[in-house]
């Protein structure tokens, strides 16, 4: 939770980000269909804030991260970093801007080059940016950052295969923060780790945020971790933004039926039967051929007639609380509000 969070100071602004992956067909690679990975997503990240993106696998949260970093070019939309349009930068300006934006990977095993020493891995962003003129200054900075993430200095000349998952993730974190970036995208940084190690890594991230004022975009499917670390949360489904609110607001007062269903299935240590809860029926539809209207209407328990016809807009239902659902659209007619009676095609028939 960013202690230094400044609500007026926007570091990163994502506007109408869309990513379609064309599917190549036929002899000449003509593509007529595409995967709708991210569909018109907008949000802003403040300085020192932790902004979480949650959703099921394949909902486009990692693609959103990759588009922000331009690891894959977005189809449309802009990313403003410090007031500059990051999506259109080229050449030296891009290299300069890349210093401010870093990524922490999910898999601590494949994200470190097995043939490089720990010191060289951590120093790579410095070496590319040529921040320090002398070797001694560079090495001193590496030592400093290794201490900051809790790595023993005797590990400098070791290779990644000698470390455990948690230590490897610390190396990955050190590499991401060595240039003191403004925004770090954490793509499921703890989901590959043991629970006890998860807590240590989360605490480390919070400590670094407090010390250096970094903003995190925290991509995760683990709602209990998100609840703990996030300041603001965005819920995604099939590439669409479903709901966006502050951490407390979202968890205490979830508005979107999808968010409610997600929160309902967090395992808690309490006497309650999982059978009493709403469990989403069916599977996530294919992003190649998304449902008409609201993309969630095929699985929604509160589906109305309008839901299959029109894409809901984001309504501000409380200050800072956005929800893209027709339930909160006051302009709808009673006719449109009639519950959709037909059983969704992919609903499971309960067995006796």
């Amino acid at each position, binding site marked *: 939770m960013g202690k230094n969070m400044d609500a007026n100071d926007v570091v990163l602004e994502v506007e109408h980000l869309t990513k379609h992956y064309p599917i190549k067909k036929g002899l000449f690679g003509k593509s007529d269909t595409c995967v709708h990975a991210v569909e018109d997503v907008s949000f802003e990240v403040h300085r020192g804030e932790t902004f979480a993106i949650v959703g099921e696998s394949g909902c486009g949260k990692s693609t959103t991260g990759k588009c922000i970093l331009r690891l894959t070019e977005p189809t449309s939309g802009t990313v403003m970093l410090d007031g500059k349009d990051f999506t259109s930068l080229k050449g030296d300006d891009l290299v300069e801007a890349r210093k401010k934006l870093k990524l922490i990977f999910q898999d601590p095993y494949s994200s*470190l080059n097995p043939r490089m020493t720990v010191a060289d891995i951590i120093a790579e962003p410095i070496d*590319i940016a040529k921040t320090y003129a002398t070797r001694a200054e560079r090495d001193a900075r590496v030592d400093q950052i290794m201490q900051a993430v809790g790595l023993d200095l005797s590990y400098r000349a070791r290779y990644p295969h000698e470390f455990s998952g948690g230590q490897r993730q610390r190396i990955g974190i050190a590499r991401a923060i060595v240039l003191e970036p403004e925004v770090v995208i954490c793509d499921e940084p703890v989901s590959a780790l043991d629970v006890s190690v998860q807590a240590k890594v989360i605490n480390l991230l919070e400590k670094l945020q407090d010390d250096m004022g970094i903003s995190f975009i925290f991509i995760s499917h683990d709602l209990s971790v998100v609840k703990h670390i996030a300041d603001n949360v965005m819920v995604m489904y099939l590439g669409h933004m479903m709901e966006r609110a502050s951490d407390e607001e979202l968890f205490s007062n979830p508005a979107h039926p999808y968010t409610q269903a997600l929160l309902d299935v967090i395992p808690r240590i309490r006497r309650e039967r999982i059978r009493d809860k709403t469990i989403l029926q069916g599977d996530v539809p294919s992003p190649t051929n998304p449902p008409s209207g609201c993309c969630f209407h095929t699985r929604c328990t509160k589906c109305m007639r309008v839901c299959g016809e029109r894409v809901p807009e984001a309504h501000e239902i409380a200050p800072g609380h956005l929800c893209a659902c027709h339930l909160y659209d006051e302009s709808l007619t009673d006719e449109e509000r009639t519950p959709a009676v037909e059983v969704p095609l992919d609903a499971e028939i309960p067995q006796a």
Partner: protein
Amino acid sequence: MMLKPSKSDPKVERAERIAADAVAAQESERAKAASGKRKASSYWAVSWNIFKRNKLGVFCLGVVIALVLVAIFAPLLAPYDPDAQTLTNMLQPPSVAHPFGTDEYGRDILSRIIYGCRVSLSVGIVSQVIALAIGFFAGVAAGYFGGKIDAVISFVIQVFSSFPFLLFAIVVMFVLGPGLVNLYVALGLLGWTSTARLIRGDVMRLKGSEYIQSCKISGGKSFRIIIKHLLPNCVSTLIVVTTLGIPNAILSEASLSFLGLGVQPPTASWGSMISASQAYIQTSTYYSVIPGLAIIITVMAFNLLGDALRDALDPKMRS
């Protein structure tokens, strides 16, 4: 007088156990600290340890080193001038003065074998270094950039590897003219396709890896990615392909010299010695057998060394 607590007192027992645990914990802590100071075990140290366990591989490494030393110190080791003709002494069987006998011009066969080692090894090594350089860059270009570049390079590889090997070598040598340097070039041009193919596969597998993405996020250029990330991860493939390519090149040199397209007389080469010995095979069998054995030993040593290196360097072979 106070009673001393007896040994069987459960409280004391527990206190003792806690104390013992604390000592054990301290010790394990110290052991950890000590292991923290041990020498970093790099990839190469681990590979060397695995390699050392393969006795045949170590023996072959010894043979290869011995061959290289023989090639380097040929002038010191050879008892006679390899090209000095003594026509009164021709086709002598092995004797004390000439351990391997003499050839049809009365030249000492041992000296010619020793000098021939220079030709064979240099052809093997230099041609494979040329093949390695071409193969690595072609493979990286095809695998890393993909698309049209990949299509063109893959097509060229197909064309090169569809030619009958000897025919192609004869054509190249015919165009370039016989001679040692041309032999290097011809065999280098012939050998790069297998390197390129393997490197292309390696690079395609590696280029999506997250550490390369991380390098791109930091603004790393393609040159840096190739040199810092792709090359070190391809080194084991390169070593194995080259070691296994050297015996092929040595055999090709022998074939081409046998056909008179390789090294020109009077320079000694194992292939040209076998070629010359043909006429005398019934009367002076040793003259054909000795260069033949030299080729067999050298080729086998490199092949077995290549196998041992592959076992030691390939992470998938470790378990």
